[in-house]
């Protein structure tokens, strides 16, 4: 492979991996800290994309739409936790799977009723709608670079929130010992509600941010859901740092898999997962 092409493919891997991280980090938070298996996580990604489509059309500005979309998805997350999820903390995983699977069906049907079954597109914001020529034939869309930058910023913010703030400390403590945290006078219910809303907002935000370069279509969440679970398992359940490393690894495996071993391109992410699990059954970064 030509070194220039190799670098471009590395850039492609990075960009895909970072967007994947955004979705998977929410999943790993909800799974690792609250112990909830959220099968509907992909649906929130889809909802985010549809929100971006509708809100951009309504307010005429992509960034304002992003902001409003985040507010709406946080509200949705809070409401769902209050209405449904909080009843599941003491239940078996099977109940969680049942409920969140049910949510997938409800969201799909609601999507069909509200937006119909057509494919939609979201316009890239005007001032970012150009490409930088890299080689004679290939250009790189500036929006993709900006998107990766935003993902990196969010990753840093999340690291800071969890490792360096009082709230993060409480969240980490709550994940380790729920009863003890409660005994210390911290409102664990509220804490969980916030974590859930944050997780949902991350998935929806990923859907919104990715909508101009992907497209907006029925069932778009399902693919993302499966690969996000792979990220969570490789990274170690509950580890945000693990999710970042795993998402980047999958980005590399997927990109180079397609180019170098196209016959098994559909399997590279799973092969990577199998290899990691053989080596470290608890994932790359086990939560302390």
């Amino acid at each position, binding site marked *: 492979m030509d070194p220039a092409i190799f670098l471009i493919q590395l850039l492609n891997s990075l960009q895909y991996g970072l967007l994947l991280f955004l979705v998977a980090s929410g999943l790993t938070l909800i799974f690792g800290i609250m112990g909830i298996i959220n099968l509907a996580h992909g649906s929130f990604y889809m909802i985010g994309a549809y929100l971006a489509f509708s809100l951009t059309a309504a307010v005429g500005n992509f960034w304002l739409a992003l902001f409003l979309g985040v507010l709406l998805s946080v509200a949705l997350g809070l409401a769902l936790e209050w209405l449904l999820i909080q009843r599941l903390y003491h239940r078996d995983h099977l109940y969680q799977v049942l409920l969140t699977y049910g949510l997938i069906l409800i969201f799909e049907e609601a999507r069909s009723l509200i937006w119909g*079954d*057509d*494919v939609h597109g979201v316009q890239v914001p005007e001032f970012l709608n150009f490409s930088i020529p890299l080689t004679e034939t290939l250009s790189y869309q500036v929006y993709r670079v900006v998107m990766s930058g935003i993902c990196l910023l969010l990753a840093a913010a999340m690291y800071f929130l969890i490792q360096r703030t009082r709230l993060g400390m409480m969240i980490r403590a709550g994940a380790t010992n729920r009863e003890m945290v409660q005994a210390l006078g911290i409102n664990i219910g509220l804490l969980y509600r916030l974590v859930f809303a944050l997780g949902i907002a991350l998935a929806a935000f990923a859907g919104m941010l990715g909508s101009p370069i992907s*497209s907006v*279509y029925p*069932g778009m969440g399902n693919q993302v859901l499966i690969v996000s679970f792979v990220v969570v398992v490789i990274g170690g359940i509950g580890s945000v740092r693990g999710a970042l490393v795993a998402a980047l690894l999958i980005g590399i495996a997927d990109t180079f898999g397609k*180019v170098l071993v196209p016959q098994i391109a559909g399997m590279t992410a799973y092969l990577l997962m199998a290899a990691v699990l053989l080596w470290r059954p608890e994932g790359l970064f086990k939560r302390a």
Partner: protein
Amino acid sequence: MNDNNVSSKRRSLLKGAAGAAGLAATGILHAPAVIAQPARLKVGLMLPYTGTYAALGNAITNAFKLYIAEKGGKVGGREIEYVVLDDESEPAKGVDNANRIVNRDKVDVLVGTVHSGVQAGMVKVSRESGVLSIIPNAGFGAATGQLCAPNIFRSSFSNWQTIHPLGKVMMEKGHKSCVWISWKYAAGEEMFGGFKEGYEKVGGKIVKEMWLPFPNVEFQALLTEIAAAKPDAVACFFAGGGAVKFVKDYDAAGLKGKIPLYGNGFVTDGTLQAQGSSAQGLLTTLHYADGLEFPKDKTFRLAYAKAYKLQPDVYAVQGYDAAQMLDVGLSAAKGDIKAQKQIVAAIEKATIDSPRGRFTISRAHNPVQDIYLRQVVGESNKFVGIAWKNLSDPARGCSMA
């Protein structure tokens, strides 16, 4: 949609009751012996009404019902009763669903479906039960190839058919080498087969085949490879959300102005609003186009738009023609569904006056039709010319061909 179904069903029931009463009265007057009013003809619509292909299933259903309504709710003198089943484009349930509608609901005619994987299951049940079947979309080659049967017809296309003429088109534009890119699944491989045969026959060279696992939409890695390979052109097959994203990514990667992109019509059908400027100017091949000047097309478009407040698409045309084919067959047999030989013979001989232009039926029961070259202009796939006149699927492995 559901409300629509219910109300249109109720309406046709009312009409049916009135019509039946009228017929019975005149029948008694003229017939030498008293003949019992024939039971209603049960038409099973097994199509996707939820999931990715819901829009296609609805378009087919709408147009099928439109034709029947234009004929006063009857074919071959018999009232139609619909049995509707949502197949969800779920191949795993294909055989079960087909069995349910054929053996439990006992439909007289089976119309469906969109997804080739589901169709494989339906074809099996059609062959076993012998029920008259019309496929209004799925391009799955074997249905009118290895698995062809006297009772199975198709009103749409074979995958091979839609893309076979593309190679010739590309050669005429001077593109002697190309890269192929598609999803690795049954339809993608059949499309590739059709394209390769047509392109290589006129001396074209496919320098590289690129495949993605279905329905993966991360194209960036392969677009980078295309840019490095610098072929004369790129030929592709994608549909739905994947087609939108591929066409947009192709443009954003700066390839659009440098390496021309071609595909069959599914790449730009029903997707133009979402593809926006990225799709402008693309040339594709398909058995339908915007701006065909046939009177039948004009009346069909008007009637459809009036009935459903929607513009019809190629899927609607296929649904409409499925109903036409049923009408031809059943009219010849005077409404007697048991006279299958007569029905089949009539459809085989028929020329269907379709909105897409007139077509006949091959011995393997697939349309023999013109494939058009279309170009994206604004939000329509404008007719440019006929890419291949009267193209017939080779129907490989079909014992009837």
